[in-house]
């Protein structure tokens, strides 16, 4: 097997437990370091960044506000997408660039079911029905990508380019080019606050999704099979795993993630704008996976690191807003930070860091033993 380039950690041949520990430590290193750097920077520049206040909104309900809450709140969609994107990356060795467009589709379906053909502003169907239909449609679109990648063996980025290009038009077509607005406040609960609860709802939804995926990874073989397929599809087939099925499944799971993220997105403002909703979110989702130190060529993955990566990206965005970075210069700042992070996670640099740690590490075990 020629997997050594993909998983440089394997070179260290220690006991399995230690090897896993080292792997987690090394993978988590990049996002944790990035997070610490951002925290430190904000702490020095303005400690009030971390203040959280309990206030009331205009409806008189209690709400928590502060930069940290903003970060946790606005990172929710990205976190949910990062879950699916990590699986897709690991299984198929490529990324789905259509998630932004399919979020537009998911949101559009949601509104179409709720508003009916006449786009009325009162809800025509229960939210859970709309959400179920939205999930089914999103998973179908995910399945479409999955078929192209798993069975037709098209490069993931090329396969998902189709929906990337056509998705927003499909979203507009679903609602006859109209931009429905839902006036019922109940619909906005998922994207804002449930009256009486001061924590934004998207935070809970993100936590729930994270909990579900960790339970799935712990109690099923999904994680193991996905990594096996990503590392070497041929040998996983020899071991009785159907690589096509696993890849296909990854895209369907991402479709489900898209449905949840789409629901949050349309719920935030109770409306949709097909051309800008979730714009460029696919790039942030891929970046989250990369930041988590996951190989973009597939194989081993670390879900926790991806999720942390998603929070780091939102942390960065909010920090840039906070420091009032000139609007036209904002992408440049982000790019600089991205370059640093990506270079840090490059295999060559990682190897260097690894060897440094080894030197320090030789002293550590002695201490631990004592």
């Amino acid at each position, binding site marked *: 097997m020629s997997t050594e380039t993909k998983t440089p950690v394997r070179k260290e041949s220690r006991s399995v437990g230690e090897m896993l520990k080292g792997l987690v430590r090394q993978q988590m290193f990049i996002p944790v370091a990035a997070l610490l750097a951002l925290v430190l920077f904000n702490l020095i520049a303005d400690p*009030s960044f971390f203040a959280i206040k309990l206030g009331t909104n*205009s409806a008189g309900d209690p709400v928590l506000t502060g930069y940290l809450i903003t970060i946790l709140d606005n990172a929710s969609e990205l976190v949910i997408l990062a879950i699916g994107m990590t699986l897709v990356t690991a299984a198929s060795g490529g990324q789905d660039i259509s998630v932004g467009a399919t979020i537009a589709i998911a949101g559009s379906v949601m509104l179409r079911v709720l508003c009916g053909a006449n786009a009325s502003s009162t809800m025509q169907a229960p939210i859970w029905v709309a959400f179920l239909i939205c999930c089914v449609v999103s998973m179908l*679109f995910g399945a479409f990508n999955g078929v192209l990648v798993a069975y037709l063996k098209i490069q993931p980025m090329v396969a998902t380019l189709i929906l990337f290009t056509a998705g927003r*038009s*499909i979203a507009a077509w679903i609602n006859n*080019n*109209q931009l429905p607005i839902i006036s019922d406040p109940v619909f906005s609960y998922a994207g804002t606050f449930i009256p009486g609860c001061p924590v934004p709802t998207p935070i809970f939804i993100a936590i729930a999704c994270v909990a579900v995926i960790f339970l799935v990874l712990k109690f099923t073989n999904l994680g193991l099979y996905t990594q096996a397929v990503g590392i070497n599809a041929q040998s996983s087939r020899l071991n009785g795993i159907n690589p096509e099925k696993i890849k296909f499944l990854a895209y369907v799971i991402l479709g489900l993630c898209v449905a949840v993220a789409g629901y949050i997105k349309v719920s935030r403002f109770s409306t949709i704008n097909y051309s800008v909703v979730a714009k460029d979110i696919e790039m942030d989702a891929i970046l989250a996976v990369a930041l988590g130190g996951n190989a973009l060529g597939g194989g081993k993955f670390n879900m926790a690191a991806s999720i942390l990566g998603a929070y780091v990206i939102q942390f960065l965005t909010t920090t840039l807003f906070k420091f009032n970075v000139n609007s036209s210069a904002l992408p440049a700042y982000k790019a600089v930070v991205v370059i640093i992070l990506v270079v840090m996670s490059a295999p060559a640099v990682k190897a260097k860091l690894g060897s440094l740690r080894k030197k320090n590490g030789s002293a550590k075990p002695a201490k631990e033993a004592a």
Partner: protein
Amino acid sequence: MKKILAIALALVMVLSLGAIAFADDEPIKVGIINNDPNESGYRTANVADFERVFSEENGYEAQTFYSLKNDEQIAAAQQMIQGDIDFLLLSAAATTGWDSVLQDAQTNGIPVILFDRTIDADESLYVASVVSDMAAEGETAVAWLEEQGLDEYNIIHIQGTMGSAAQVGRTGALDEKVAAEDSWNIVTQQTAEWNAETAQQIVQSVIDSGEEFNVIYAENDDMARGAVAALDKANITHGVDGDVIVMGFDCNKWALEEVLAGRWNYDGQCNPFQADTIDGIIKDLMAGNEPAEKTIIMEEVGFDAATITQEDIDTSGIGVGSEEMAEEAEAEEPAEDAEEEPAEEEAAE
């Protein structure tokens, strides 16, 4: 997959061209090149307005082509000129590259009327241009803001996608005023790229920092909506008698309803209804009268919460409001998207 799609699309186009070629009578044949109606609420209203005016009932036969890509538009225009049209109406995706096409039109005796956007070409190549003046929209808004007579203006300025005509025009007027007056300050000036959510984050960031502000100048309605969501969350009053003045642009119906309800203070118009003006120009040209002015700037007003009426919303609002929606529900489906859908379902099995 893509090939099949391309062939299907080509078929649809050929069929629609064919359908036009076999029409009867002697209607005025116009070729309309516009941007994709999905681009924005403005564009949807713009396209619908042209479909309303240049209809068979009004004695027109319209050939339409919608794309956001300049080269596709140019190719379509060339085809229309080779074909059988009397007038070419054009809203170009980009300002350059149109000279040779317009020259072709001129040699074929087809008058060209520009609408919505001007292009970089010699004035002699078109008979008229009916456009919006984005800079004037900004000036109208800033003049309105000055009339409010605040002691101090602390403005959160949320910009559209940098470099777009709307952003440049609407930003220019405000920048000039802020530079000229000591009591006008910019608290923050950032682009939300027409995105409500980004706008919300920008305003949220200012609120979290504790900085004072009393004006939100958002360059479109969606971004104003996002800004207001952040204000509501922090229990900051806005609109008439509120602590913060909220300004938007584009006059979507739902936005004008916000103005009417007093939750926003101002919404600046970007008038998409150019078809009637062009209809007049065409009728004049048929009667042998050249238009008096080459450049006709659409009348664009700003709506103030103090003076707006329901009638203003009905006549000037674009898209659908939250109150009345039913009548437009049976809008036709764009052919290209219809092609995509079955292919998807097949593959998904």
